[in-house]
């Protein structure tokens, strides 16, 4: 436990000592701010129009602002995740510092968990920043807070899975760019796996859709905590971390 904490601290430090964390935070905040602004702008326009045309049902902020924003946030995250994981192991391999970690009295799994958790923490900080935008909704509107919290939880789980995959890919190379590009490719693929289910009803399309990371986020952003979807993300996390530990082990046998 203590060793995980030591690694976690070191990794988080290196995110925040280098400009990486600040760059990601700034970009995330700016892009999300823009999304938020246009989304709210559109919502105002649409609700004004619906009032003018005599509609008396007030439009739901949750339905028309929060939900699409949450799924947009996932998309932005898709671009940021490779940048967060690519250096985790690739850098250590390039600099040779992996020898220090591997010859210290600390288990592989502690190294892996420490590193992965630091990436998850950084992602959580990114999400936290977007909370500022939502605070305005609560100040001037009256949305339901539960779907928002559950939506955040879903995003964190989704990112956790993708970050685990990214961590694994980072152990495969000593080149950060390769690790980043490969992670982006795999994440994007996991994202679009559900597309065939839009035109195909056969079993394989359903399987593909089930494997996609997007399919399982819907319930969360609706504010429903569905065990089935949570289990999917937890399995993805487990798979990623398991592959990472196997890869680290094979590193020793090969190198």
């Amino acid at each position, binding site marked *: 436990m203590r*060793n995980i904490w*030591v690694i976690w601290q*070191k990794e988080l*430090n*290196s995110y925040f*000592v*280098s400009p990486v964390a600040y760059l990601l935070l700034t970009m995330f905040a700016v892009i999300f701010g823009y999304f938020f602004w246009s989304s709210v702008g559109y919502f105002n326009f649409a609700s004004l129009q619906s009032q003018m045309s005599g509609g008396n049902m007030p439009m739901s902020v949750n339905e028309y602002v929060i939900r699409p924003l949450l799924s947009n946030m996932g998309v932005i995250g898709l671009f940021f995740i490779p940048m967060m994981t690519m250096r985790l192991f690739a850098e250590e391999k390039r*600099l*040779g*510092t*992996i*020898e*220090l*970690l*591997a*010859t*210290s*009295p*600390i*288990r592989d799994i502690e190294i892996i968990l420490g590193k992965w958790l630091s990436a998850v923490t950084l992602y959580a900080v990114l999400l936290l920043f977007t909370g500022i935008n939502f605070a305005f909704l609560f100040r001037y509107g009256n949305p339901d807070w539960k779907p928002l919290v559950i939506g955040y939880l879903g995003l964190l789980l989704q990112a956790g899975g993708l970050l685990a995959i990214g961590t694994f890919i980072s152990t495969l190379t000593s080149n950060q760019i390769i690790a980043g590009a490969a992670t982006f490719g795999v994440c994007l693929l996991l994202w679009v796996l559900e597309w065939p289910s839009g035109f195909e009803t056969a079993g394989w399309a359903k399987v593909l859709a089930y494997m996609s990371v997007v399919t399982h986020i819907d319930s969360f952003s609706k504010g429903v905590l569905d065990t089935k979807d949570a289990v999917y993300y937890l399995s993805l996390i487990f798979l990623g971390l398991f592959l990472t530990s196997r890869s680290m082990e094979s590193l*020793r*046998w090969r*190198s």
Partner: protein
Amino acid sequence: MITVQGLTKRYARTLAVDHISFEVTKGQIVGFLGPNGAGKTTTMRILTCFLPPSEGTANVAGFDVLEQPLEVKKRIGYLPETPPVYQEMEVKEYLTFVGKLKGMSGQSLANRVAEVAERTAIADVQNKLIGKLSKGYRQRVGLAQAIIHNPDVLILDEPTAGLDPKQIIETRDLIRSLAGDHTIILSTHILPEVEQTCEQVLIINKGKLVATDSVHNLQNRARGAESVMLEVEGRSGAIDSQTIQHRLETVNGVSRVLLKDSRGDRSVFEVESLKDRSIRGDLARAVVESGWNLNELRPAAMSLEEIFLQLTGSEKVEEPVPAEAVVQGESQ
């Protein structure tokens, strides 16, 4: 302290380490000598539990590297070929991090960091970024991290590579001062380094242990016959180097004379003596008495290559490289 038996490491196609067995007792400094690619680093990586052996066993401080790697790692300090430092960390921060990795904490860690920084002479840069340090400092930071947890066994992979001569001497002194409390294995391809720091030598070539001996014995083995470089100049005009060579060959105790270079009126010879004969005085007299100038007379340093060839029983190299050249050439 360290027992290695039949240690073998096989990679996909190559045999990096081939059935090596040796033993190191507590408090000794052992030099691991061999050319690049001989299997030094691989053996060290096995001892530090970085790599598993393909065959054989290695026991460090009473624990097997395969069975109880965590126990071994607790008792080992390792400086790999390139110091495993993080560029973006400050020296003090880095040493603290390594200390924590090794299971230390709190005030005792802070004290130890200060102590180690003092001992490795990096106290003056402890608040600097490692990325901004010179190679020499970085190497010493690497050494500092290896001894931070006061390990029983220190494994140093070419600890003086890339240092300037002054730093090399300081580092050797430091390593010598660490012996006693620590058992040290250091690898190098520089012979004088072994002579100056180590008590015991393991010579490894192409994955095989070629010789295990004390430094003293090794020197005798390599230097049983004296080898002398000699530059002779004709006093008036050009001289025939053949004539000089014949004259030198007649000197008592000379076994072989090689003409190394001949330029105008100057000729350079390498003269080898018979075993256990000192020939320098006789050589000088012979040259001067024949009416030539003796420009230079110095013992030719046995290069590592030559010793290797002697030990492995191969043929003599064409152009032996002086030890100094080996130092500079290979440390780049």
